[in-house]
């Protein structure tokens, strides 16, 4: 009964989403306040029913209801309960349901937290979000029903969750990623509502900015977790593969990065309005495009999805309606929202433009590179592969181009600044940064031009930020007073930019200084990698809840001191018979030690073993974490919180849109 109940709830949610799309939109057109005022309630209604549906699917998984097709295909009675739960979204249908749940949560959140919006605006925003919900709910109901039964002939047990997905990182990676993807729908809906109304008032950017920053923060976390998961579960030391599925999440991130900066200029200065609107459309369009790419099978990815041309066609049609429709609206209405504000060449506005140019070009480059094989195939030009060597070759210089401007950005002033002021503020950081680059790599290992460059760029970012902070603090009566005066939104920027610097150092150090050694090892043998002695003590069989494994037990010594025991495994999962390599990693801020098992070599007890020394690989993820924390911090800023205070006051009195 429960699956049918879930299916039924999904249908009610779908119907409510249709009403949410139509009624407030009709109200907005007719200026019917009653119709518009229905929007928040409807948004919450959609959330309630989608949540019920989601809970029903969770129950089906947790109760091992193998009459449900997705449960049979993705779960097993031996599966630990936490993975039964995460298996809910470890498949095409369930992940769509999660996507819909998150979308309806964002929609309801907008309904609840944006009551200070003019009713007309709120009705339009929620109607647009409702329409996106209609698209995904109908996609699920028509092509990918998660509650489909296996009738007749209910299997005794399920096929088990893919062992790769039986991992803590993968429990939270998809929800975070979807929070980001779907979160951009809020900025998108605000943009469409603004175009629809034909005016972008100064408050528009202030309203959509916190939502966008939160979405961007979640997307950052999601991508970070995906990379981290690949590193220890799939990549055998690799952490980014420029696979189409990865690019599908990276492109919205790049466009979103441009968007959050452009939004800052729009909020503070009323600038770049039509450009910001276009970026908001672009960022969410890329989220939708990503969905198409990973579920339609038009590109080959190492991550196989439920690829089905029928589903691909559905998403494509939806994509055409949403993106085509919004770009048409943009083309027709954009002049109405164009900015009338000017600024000088030497100003923060120009630097934000630099940011936008680099991120836009990066986004389009990744997009073009990802789709290039498809373009060539469609044009009959043969089969091409575009992989990491290409993307690294074009992406790294673009990012390097960004950093010099990025250092100046926080120091610079809006509207009008002088080169002389920049010089007096930044000459010292620049000189010290170059000196850092010239000398620092000497301490680590042999001189490496790329590491030197990376250290210089990172030092430039950090020093200019610190210089700026010091400048701001110095202006106050005392240091503590100065620190207190600094807004949370400044701290957010500060932390996020520091995070970017950490990323640069991590990426370059780990790609330049990593040592990888594949070899045949016998129990008792010791091998030295980057000064660490890895001793293979023994190889023993072990058993887990739903797998059996061979486990290699290593002791690692440095300067004669034992520093850690590592125990990588080679597992065989009982239900599926799949073989999995489980690496073991000694993580550290300055270096990771990574051991993975290959196959037995010969009959005399030797195994193929991979030993890795990865310096500063954690800095990358730490940096991404800082970026996300920064994004969340900006949202806590006083000026956004004021909106909330005002709301409570309003709630006590007459609602703005009250009857």
């Amino acid at each position, binding site marked *: 009964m429960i699956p049918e109940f879930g299916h039924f709830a999904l249908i009610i949610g779908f119907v409510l989403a249709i009403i949410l799309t139509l009624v407030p939109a009709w109200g907005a057109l007719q200026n019917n306040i009653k119709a518009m005022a229905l929007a928040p309630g409807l948004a919450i209604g959609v959330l309630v029913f989608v949540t019920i549906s989601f809970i029903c699917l969770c129950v089906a998984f947790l109760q091992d209801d193998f009459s449900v097709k997705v449960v049979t295909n993705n779960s097993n009675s031996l599966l630990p309960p936490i993975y039964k739960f995460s298996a809910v979204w470890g498949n095409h249908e369930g992940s769509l349901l999660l996507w819909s749940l998150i979308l309806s949560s964002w929609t309801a959140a907008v309904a609840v937290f944006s009551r200070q919006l003019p009713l007309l605006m709120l009705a339009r925003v929620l109607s647009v979000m409702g329409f996106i919900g209609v698209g995904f709910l109908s996609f699920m109901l028509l092509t990918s029903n998660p509650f489909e039964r296996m009738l007749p002939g209910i299997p005794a047990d399920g096929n088990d969750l893919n062992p790769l997905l039986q991992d803590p990182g993968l429990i939270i990676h998809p929800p975070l990623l979807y929070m980001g993807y779907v979160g951009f729908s809020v900025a998108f809906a605000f943009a469409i509502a603004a175009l629809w109304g034909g005016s972008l008032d100064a408050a528009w950017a202030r309203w959509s900015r916190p939502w966008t920053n939160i979405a961007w923060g979640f997307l950052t976390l999601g991508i970070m977790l995906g990379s981290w998961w690949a590193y220890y579960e799939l990549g055998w030391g690799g952490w980014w593969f420029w696979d189409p599925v990865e690019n599908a999440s990276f492109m919205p991130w790049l466009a979103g990065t441009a968007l959050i900066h452009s939004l800052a200029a729009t909020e503070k200065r009323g600038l770049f309005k039509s450009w910001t609107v276009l970026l908001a459309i672009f960022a969410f369009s890329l989220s939708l495009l990503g969905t198409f790419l990973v579920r339609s099978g038009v590109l080959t990815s190492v991550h196989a*999805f439920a690829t089905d041309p029928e589903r691909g066609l559905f998403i494509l049609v939806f994509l055409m309606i949403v993106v085509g429709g919004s770009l048409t609206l943009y083309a027709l209405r954009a002049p109405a929202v164009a900015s009338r504000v000017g600024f000088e060449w030497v100003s923060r506005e120009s630097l934000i433009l630099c940011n936008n140019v680099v991120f836009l070009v990066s986004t389009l480059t990744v997009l073009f590179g990802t789709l290039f094989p498809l373009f060539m195939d469609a044009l009959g030009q043969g089969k091409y592969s575009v992989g990491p060597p290409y993307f690294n070759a074009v992406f790294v210089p673009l990012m390097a181009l960004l950093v010099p401007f990025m250092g100046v950005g926080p120091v610079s002033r809006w509207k009008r600044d002088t080169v002389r002021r920049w010089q007096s503020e930044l000459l010292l950081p620049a000189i010290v940064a170059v000196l850092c680059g010239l000398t620092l790599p000497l301490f680590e290992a042999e001189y490496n031009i790329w590491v030197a460059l990376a250290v210089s760029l990172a030092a430039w970012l950090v020093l200019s930020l610190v210089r700026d902070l010091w400048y701001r603090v110095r202006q106050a009566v005392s240091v503590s007073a100065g620190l207190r005066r600094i807004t949370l939104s400044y701290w957010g920027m500060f932390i996020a930019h520091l995070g970017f610097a950490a990323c640069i150092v991590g990426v370059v150090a780990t790609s330049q200084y990593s040592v990888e050694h594949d070899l045949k090892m016998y129990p008792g043998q010791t091998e030295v990698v980057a000064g660490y002695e890895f001793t293979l003590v023994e190889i023993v069989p072990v058993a887990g809840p739903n797998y059996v494994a061979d486990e290699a037990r290593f002791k690692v010594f440095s300067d004669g001191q034992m520093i850690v025991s590592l125990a990588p495994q080679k597992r065989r999962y009982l239900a599926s018979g799949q073989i999995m390599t489980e690496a073991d990693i000694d993580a550290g801020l300055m270096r990771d030690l990574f051991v993975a098992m290959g196959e037995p070599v010969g009959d005399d007890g030797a195994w193929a073993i991979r030993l890795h020394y990865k310096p500063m690989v954690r800095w990358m993820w730490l940096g991404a974490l800082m970026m996300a924390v920064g994004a969340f911090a900006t949202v806590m800023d006083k000026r956004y919180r004021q909106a909330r205070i005002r709301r409570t006051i309003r709630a006590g009195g007459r609602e703005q849109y009250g009857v």
Partner: protein
Amino acid sequence: MTKSYLLAILVFMLPIAPAVAVIETYEFSDPALELRYRQLTQELRCPKCQNQNIADSNAPIAQDLRLLLYQQLESGASDGEILDHMVARYGEFVRYRPSFEGAAIVLWLTPLVLLLVAVGVVILALKRKSPRAESSDATLSAEEQRQLDRMLRDSEHGS
């Protein structure tokens, strides 16, 4: 219910190849060869697999190609010769770094062209705008000013 529907692998993120670390234990006569081997295995695409290089794939064809690569490196072939050898047999498809010829020239030039166009557009737009920078001290329209005033008033009441 179509057949392909039933056959579709209803899995969210399942690498087709089993997730088994590929670890070859070739012994190279020169550490430089091992470095080149590592690099080339990452630049060559496994023809049979999903999107995987031959370093990460356990497919038999990837094993064969790794062995071939090892033999060619040991026999002193240059990177260019090895890549040509592979492309002659498996097509341009095996190269993750498309060569700078034919249609792939477009691929390589795109980022540069995009960058130049973007910079050009920005400069043009700024040139058109900058003369007005002096005159337009009023950055907000009357309507925006009204909006903002209301917001600020509200927030004062709030705090």
